[in-house]
Protein backbone atom coordinates (compact mmCIF):
# COMPACT_ATOMS: atom_id res chain seq x y z
CA UNK A 1 0.00 0.00 0.00
CA UNK A 2 2.90 2.33 0.86
CA UNK A 3 4.35 1.70 -2.59
CA UNK A 4 1.12 2.75 -4.30
CA UNK A 5 0.90 5.84 -2.12
CA UNK A 6 4.39 7.00 -3.06
CA UNK A 7 3.97 6.25 -6.75
CA UNK A 8 0.74 8.29 -6.72
CA UNK A 9 2.28 11.16 -4.78
CA UNK A 10 5.40 11.47 -6.92
CA UNK A 11 3.48 10.91 -10.16
CA UNK A 12 1.08 13.74 -9.33
CA UNK A 13 3.83 16.08 -8.14
CA UNK A 14 6.01 15.36 -11.16
CA UNK A 15 3.15 15.81 -13.63
CA UNK A 16 2.13 19.14 -12.08
CA UNK A 17 5.74 20.37 -11.92
CA UNK A 18 6.49 19.51 -15.56
CA UNK A 19 3.29 21.25 -16.58
CA UNK A 20 4.02 24.40 -14.57
CA UNK A 21 7.57 24.53 -15.88
CA UNK A 22 6.27 24.71 -19.45
CA UNK A 23 8.08 21.52 -20.49
CA UNK A 24 4.86 20.07 -21.88
CA UNK A 25 4.12 23.15 -24.02
CA UNK A 26 4.92 22.45 -27.68
CA UNK A 27 6.03 26.02 -28.33
CA UNK A 28 8.22 26.11 -25.22
CA UNK A 29 10.00 22.81 -25.83
CA UNK A 30 10.52 23.46 -29.55
CA UNK A 31 11.95 26.89 -28.75
CA UNK A 32 14.33 25.15 -26.34
CA UNK A 33 15.46 22.80 -29.10
CA UNK A 34 16.20 25.68 -31.45
CA UNK A 35 18.12 27.26 -28.56
CA UNK A 36 15.80 30.20 -28.08
CA UNK A 37 14.58 29.26 -24.61
CA UNK A 38 17.49 28.99 -22.23
CA UNK A 39 15.44 29.34 -18.99
CA UNK A 40 13.76 26.03 -19.82
CA UNK A 41 17.16 24.39 -20.16
CA UNK A 42 18.03 25.84 -16.76
CA UNK A 43 15.09 23.95 -15.17
CA UNK A 44 16.77 20.72 -16.17
CA UNK A 45 20.31 21.89 -15.40
CA UNK A 46 19.38 23.11 -11.93
CA UNK A 47 17.55 19.87 -11.12
CA UNK A 48 20.59 17.81 -12.18
CA UNK A 49 22.95 20.06 -10.24
CA UNK A 50 20.90 19.79 -7.06
CA UNK A 51 20.54 16.05 -7.55
CA UNK A 52 24.31 15.68 -7.79
CA UNK A 53 24.70 17.17 -4.33
CA UNK A 54 21.71 15.20 -3.04
CA UNK A 55 22.89 11.84 -4.35
CA UNK A 56 26.39 12.51 -3.06
CA UNK A 57 24.96 12.93 0.43
CA UNK A 58 22.53 10.01 0.09
CA UNK A 59 25.11 7.56 -1.21
CA UNK A 60 27.85 8.40 1.31
CA UNK A 61 27.55 5.10 3.09
CA UNK A 62 26.33 2.82 0.35
CA UNK A 63 27.12 2.07 -3.21
CA UNK A 64 24.31 2.89 -5.60
CA UNK A 65 24.12 0.82 -8.78
CA UNK A 66 24.72 2.75 -11.97
CA UNK A 67 23.49 2.18 -15.47
CA UNK A 68 25.84 0.38 -17.77
CA UNK A 69 26.85 1.46 -21.24
CA UNK A 70 25.34 -0.98 -23.73
CA UNK A 71 25.20 -1.36 -27.48
CA UNK A 72 21.88 0.46 -27.43
CA UNK A 73 22.82 3.49 -25.33
CA UNK A 74 23.92 5.80 -28.14
CA UNK A 75 21.75 4.55 -31.02
CA UNK A 76 18.71 4.40 -28.74
CA UNK A 77 19.36 7.93 -27.50
CA UNK A 78 19.65 9.22 -31.09
CA UNK A 79 16.28 7.63 -31.94
CA UNK A 80 14.77 9.12 -28.78
CA UNK A 81 16.27 12.54 -29.57
CA UNK A 82 14.64 12.63 -33.00
CA UNK A 83 11.35 11.39 -31.55
CA UNK A 84 11.49 14.02 -28.81
CA UNK A 85 12.08 16.76 -31.39
CA UNK A 86 9.20 15.51 -33.57
CA UNK A 87 6.64 15.05 -30.78
CA UNK A 88 7.83 17.58 -28.21
CA UNK A 89 7.39 14.74 -25.75
CA UNK A 90 9.42 12.32 -23.69
CA UNK A 91 7.80 9.32 -21.96
CA UNK A 92 6.44 11.42 -19.10
CA UNK A 93 5.63 14.61 -21.02
CA UNK A 94 3.26 12.81 -23.44
CA UNK A 95 1.10 11.85 -20.44
CA UNK A 96 1.27 15.33 -18.93
CA UNK A 97 0.17 16.83 -22.27
CA UNK A 98 -2.77 14.44 -22.35
CA UNK A 99 -3.83 15.55 -18.85
CA UNK A 100 -3.60 19.21 -19.85
CA UNK A 101 -6.17 18.61 -22.58
CA UNK A 102 -3.80 18.51 -25.55
CA UNK A 103 -5.66 15.80 -27.40
CA UNK A 104 -3.02 15.34 -30.12
CA UNK A 105 -0.87 13.74 -27.40
CA UNK A 106 -3.12 10.68 -27.75
CA UNK A 107 -1.24 9.92 -30.97
CA UNK A 108 2.10 10.32 -29.16
CA UNK A 109 1.01 8.08 -26.28
CA UNK A 110 -0.18 5.41 -28.74
CA UNK A 111 3.16 5.67 -30.55
CA UNK A 112 5.19 5.30 -27.35
CA UNK A 113 3.15 2.29 -26.32
CA UNK A 114 3.74 0.72 -29.76
CA UNK A 115 7.46 1.55 -29.65
CA UNK A 116 7.96 0.01 -26.21
CA UNK A 117 6.01 -3.05 -27.30
CA UNK A 118 8.04 -3.43 -30.53
CA UNK A 119 11.30 -3.16 -28.64
CA UNK A 120 10.31 -5.73 -26.04
CA UNK A 121 9.06 -8.06 -28.78
CA UNK A 122 12.26 -7.60 -30.75
CA UNK A 123 14.53 -8.26 -27.78
CA UNK A 124 12.63 -11.36 -26.82
CA UNK A 125 13.15 -12.97 -30.21
CA UNK A 126 15.15 -11.47 -33.09
CA UNK A 127 17.58 -8.98 -31.60
CA UNK A 128 19.38 -10.35 -28.61
CA UNK A 129 20.37 -7.25 -26.74
CA UNK A 130 18.23 -6.62 -23.74
CA UNK A 131 19.30 -3.37 -22.19
CA UNK A 132 17.38 -3.80 -18.95
CA UNK A 133 14.48 -1.90 -17.51
CA UNK A 134 15.08 1.62 -16.31
CA UNK A 135 14.92 1.99 -12.53
CA UNK A 136 15.66 -1.66 -11.83
CA UNK A 137 19.38 -1.77 -12.34
Amino acid sequence: MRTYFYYSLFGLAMGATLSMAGLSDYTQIHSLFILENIPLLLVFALAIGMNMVGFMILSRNKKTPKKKLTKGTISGSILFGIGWALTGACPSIALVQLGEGKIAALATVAGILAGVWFYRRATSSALKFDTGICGEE
Partner: protein
Amino acid sequence: MELYLPWWITGTALSVITLGFYIALNRPLGVSGSWARIVLWKNDKVIKEAEAPFQNNPKLFEDALMAATIEEFGEETVLEYMQSRHKSDDTTPVKPLTRSVSPNRSPWTAHLVFLIMLVLGGMLGAYLRGDLHIQATLGELHTSLFGSGIGSLMMLFFGGIMVGFGTQMAGGCTSGHGLSGFSRLAPASIIATITFFGTAIAFSTAAHYLG
Protein backbone atom coordinates in the same frame (compact mmCIF):
# COMPACT_ATOMS: atom_id res chain seq x y z
CA MET B 1 3.89 34.97 -21.89
CA GLU B 2 4.27 34.59 -18.13
CA LEU B 3 2.17 31.47 -17.89
CA TYR B 4 4.82 29.37 -16.25
CA LEU B 5 6.66 29.33 -12.93
CA PRO B 6 10.27 30.59 -12.94
CA TRP B 7 12.96 28.01 -13.73
CA TRP B 8 14.51 28.02 -10.29
CA ILE B 9 11.25 26.99 -8.62
CA THR B 10 10.43 24.15 -11.02
CA GLY B 11 14.08 23.02 -11.19
CA THR B 12 14.19 22.80 -7.39
CA ALA B 13 10.85 20.97 -7.35
CA LEU B 14 12.09 18.41 -9.90
CA SER B 15 15.16 17.78 -7.79
CA VAL B 16 13.09 17.34 -4.62
CA ILE B 17 10.89 14.86 -6.53
CA THR B 18 13.86 12.82 -7.84
CA LEU B 19 15.53 12.65 -4.43
CA GLY B 20 12.27 12.06 -2.54
CA PHE B 21 11.40 9.23 -4.92
CA TYR B 22 14.80 7.67 -4.32
CA ILE B 23 14.49 7.94 -0.55
CA ALA B 24 10.89 6.73 -0.35
CA LEU B 25 11.05 3.87 -2.86
CA ASN B 26 14.75 2.99 -2.68
CA ARG B 27 15.22 3.08 -6.43
CA PRO B 28 16.01 5.75 -8.97
CA LEU B 29 13.19 7.54 -10.76
CA GLY B 30 12.68 6.31 -14.34
CA VAL B 31 9.52 6.77 -16.35
CA SER B 32 10.53 4.68 -19.39
CA GLY B 33 10.97 1.72 -17.03
CA SER B 34 7.35 2.10 -15.89
CA TRP B 35 6.19 1.91 -19.52
CA ALA B 36 8.17 -1.30 -19.95
CA ARG B 37 6.75 -2.85 -16.79
CA ILE B 38 3.21 -2.13 -17.99
CA VAL B 39 3.85 -3.53 -21.45
CA LEU B 40 5.47 -6.59 -19.85
CA TRP B 41 2.70 -7.01 -17.26
CA LYS B 42 2.39 -10.72 -18.00
CA ASN B 43 5.96 -11.29 -16.80
CA ASP B 44 4.93 -10.38 -13.26
CA LYS B 45 2.74 -13.47 -13.12
CA VAL B 46 5.42 -15.74 -14.57
CA ILE B 47 8.04 -14.49 -12.10
CA LYS B 48 5.66 -14.80 -9.17
CA GLU B 49 4.89 -18.40 -10.09
CA ALA B 50 8.55 -19.24 -10.57
CA GLU B 51 9.49 -17.67 -7.24
CA ALA B 52 6.67 -19.15 -5.19
CA PRO B 53 8.39 -22.41 -4.13
CA PHE B 54 11.55 -20.54 -3.09
CA GLN B 55 9.67 -17.95 -1.07
CA ASN B 56 8.31 -20.65 1.25
CA ASN B 57 11.45 -22.75 1.34
CA PRO B 58 14.84 -20.99 1.27
CA LYS B 59 16.64 -24.37 1.38
CA LEU B 60 15.16 -25.16 -2.01
CA PHE B 61 16.79 -22.00 -3.36
CA GLU B 62 20.20 -23.01 -2.02
CA ASP B 63 19.82 -26.45 -3.62
CA ALA B 64 18.85 -24.90 -6.94
CA LEU B 65 21.85 -22.56 -6.77
CA MET B 66 24.17 -25.48 -6.03
CA ALA B 67 22.72 -27.51 -8.88
CA ALA B 68 23.22 -24.60 -11.27
CA THR B 69 26.80 -24.10 -10.02
CA ILE B 70 27.64 -27.76 -10.58
CA GLU B 71 26.11 -27.61 -14.03
CA GLU B 72 28.20 -24.54 -14.90
CA PHE B 73 31.59 -25.58 -13.45
CA GLY B 74 31.38 -29.35 -13.17
CA GLU B 75 31.08 -31.46 -10.04
CA GLU B 76 34.83 -31.91 -9.60
CA THR B 77 35.63 -28.22 -9.48
CA VAL B 78 32.87 -27.59 -7.00
CA LEU B 79 33.98 -30.46 -4.74
CA GLU B 80 37.57 -29.26 -4.92
CA TYR B 81 36.49 -25.79 -3.94
CA MET B 82 34.45 -27.05 -1.01
CA GLN B 83 37.38 -29.12 0.23
CA SER B 84 39.84 -26.26 -0.13
CA ARG B 85 37.48 -24.15 1.91
CA HIS B 86 37.42 -26.78 4.63
CA LYS B 87 41.20 -27.25 4.66
CA SER B 88 42.24 -23.63 4.75
CA ASP B 89 41.13 -21.63 7.71
CA ASP B 90 38.74 -19.72 5.56
CA THR B 91 36.20 -18.69 8.09
CA THR B 92 34.74 -15.78 6.19
CA PRO B 93 31.10 -16.03 7.06
CA VAL B 94 28.85 -16.58 4.11
CA LYS B 95 26.41 -13.72 3.84
CA PRO B 96 22.92 -14.89 4.70
CA LEU B 97 20.30 -14.62 2.03
CA THR B 98 18.04 -11.80 3.07
CA ARG B 99 16.26 -10.90 -0.11
CA SER B 100 14.04 -12.74 -2.50
CA VAL B 101 15.20 -13.52 -6.02
CA SER B 102 14.17 -10.23 -7.54
CA PRO B 103 14.77 -7.34 -5.19
CA ASN B 104 13.36 -3.92 -5.70
CA ARG B 105 10.49 -4.82 -7.99
CA SER B 106 7.19 -3.15 -7.48
CA PRO B 107 4.07 -4.69 -9.02
CA TRP B 108 3.24 -3.49 -12.53
CA THR B 109 0.01 -2.00 -11.25
CA ALA B 110 2.06 0.45 -9.15
CA HIS B 111 3.74 1.61 -12.35
CA LEU B 112 0.34 1.96 -14.00
CA VAL B 113 -0.82 4.12 -11.08
CA PHE B 114 2.35 6.21 -11.52
CA LEU B 115 1.64 6.89 -15.22
CA ILE B 116 -2.03 7.66 -14.54
CA MET B 117 -0.99 10.11 -11.83
CA LEU B 118 1.32 11.81 -14.33
CA VAL B 119 -1.76 12.45 -16.49
CA LEU B 120 -3.67 13.78 -13.46
CA GLY B 121 -0.61 15.82 -12.49
CA GLY B 122 -0.66 17.46 -15.91
CA MET B 123 -4.33 18.23 -15.35
CA LEU B 124 -3.58 19.74 -11.94
CA GLY B 125 -0.72 21.80 -13.34
CA ALA B 126 -2.83 23.18 -16.17
CA TYR B 127 -5.64 23.94 -13.71
CA LEU B 128 -3.31 25.84 -11.39
CA ARG B 129 -2.05 27.84 -14.36
CA GLY B 130 -5.67 28.52 -15.34
CA ASP B 131 -5.13 26.87 -18.71
CA LEU B 132 -7.07 23.60 -18.42
CA HIS B 133 -9.10 23.12 -21.58
CA ILE B 134 -9.24 20.91 -24.64
CA GLN B 135 -6.63 22.06 -27.16
CA ALA B 136 -6.66 20.66 -30.65
CA THR B 137 -3.85 22.80 -32.09
CA LEU B 138 -0.16 22.27 -31.51
CA GLY B 139 0.96 25.87 -31.60
CA GLU B 140 2.58 28.02 -34.28
CA LEU B 141 6.16 26.88 -33.81
CA HIS B 142 5.24 23.21 -34.04
CA THR B 143 3.22 23.87 -37.19
CA SER B 144 6.04 25.83 -38.80
CA LEU B 145 8.51 23.03 -37.99
CA PHE B 146 6.47 19.90 -38.65
CA GLY B 147 3.20 20.94 -40.30
CA SER B 148 -0.39 20.49 -39.15
CA GLY B 149 -3.49 18.42 -39.76
CA ILE B 150 -3.65 14.65 -40.20
CA GLY B 151 -0.04 14.52 -41.37
CA SER B 152 1.19 15.98 -38.11
CA LEU B 153 -0.82 13.43 -36.13
CA MET B 154 0.91 10.66 -38.09
CA MET B 155 4.20 12.34 -37.31
CA LEU B 156 3.34 12.39 -33.60
CA PHE B 157 2.53 8.69 -33.78
CA PHE B 158 5.76 7.74 -35.56
CA GLY B 159 7.75 10.12 -33.37
CA GLY B 160 6.12 8.38 -30.40
CA ILE B 161 7.32 5.02 -31.69
CA MET B 162 10.85 6.42 -31.86
CA VAL B 163 10.53 7.73 -28.30
CA GLY B 164 9.22 4.38 -27.04
CA PHE B 165 11.68 2.21 -28.94
CA GLY B 166 14.64 4.55 -28.42
CA THR B 167 14.23 4.95 -24.66
CA GLN B 168 13.94 1.19 -24.17
CA MET B 169 17.00 0.61 -26.32
CA ALA B 170 18.98 3.30 -24.50
CA GLY B 171 17.88 1.91 -21.13
CA GLY B 172 16.36 5.16 -19.93
CA CYS B 173 14.91 8.54 -20.77
CA THR B 174 14.96 12.11 -19.52
CA SER B 175 14.17 11.04 -15.98
CA GLY B 176 16.19 7.82 -15.70
CA HIS B 177 19.31 8.85 -17.59
CA GLY B 178 18.91 12.60 -17.17
CA LEU B 179 17.58 13.43 -13.71
CA SER B 180 18.74 10.36 -11.82
CA GLY B 181 21.60 8.85 -13.85
CA PHE B 182 23.54 11.95 -14.92
CA SER B 183 23.56 13.30 -11.38
CA ARG B 184 24.94 10.04 -10.00
CA LEU B 185 27.70 10.49 -12.58
CA ALA B 186 27.02 7.22 -14.39
CA PRO B 187 29.05 7.44 -17.63
CA ALA B 188 26.30 5.69 -19.65
CA SER B 189 23.73 8.24 -18.44
CA ILE B 190 25.97 11.21 -19.17
CA ILE B 191 26.56 9.90 -22.70
CA ALA B 192 22.84 9.16 -23.20
CA THR B 193 21.70 12.56 -21.91
CA ILE B 194 24.15 14.48 -24.09
CA THR B 195 23.19 12.31 -27.08
CA PHE B 196 19.42 12.72 -26.85
CA PHE B 197 19.56 16.42 -26.03
CA GLY B 198 22.14 17.00 -28.73
CA THR B 199 20.16 15.05 -31.32
CA ALA B 200 16.91 16.86 -30.51
CA ILE B 201 18.64 20.26 -30.73
CA ALA B 202 20.42 19.36 -33.98
CA PHE B 203 17.24 17.95 -35.55
CA SER B 204 14.98 20.88 -34.62
CA THR B 205 17.58 23.49 -35.49
CA ALA B 206 18.04 21.88 -38.90
CA ALA B 207 14.25 21.75 -39.42
CA HIS B 208 13.98 25.40 -38.34
CA TYR B 209 16.68 26.87 -40.54
CA LEU B 210 16.60 24.51 -43.51
CA GLY B 211 12.92 23.52 -43.59
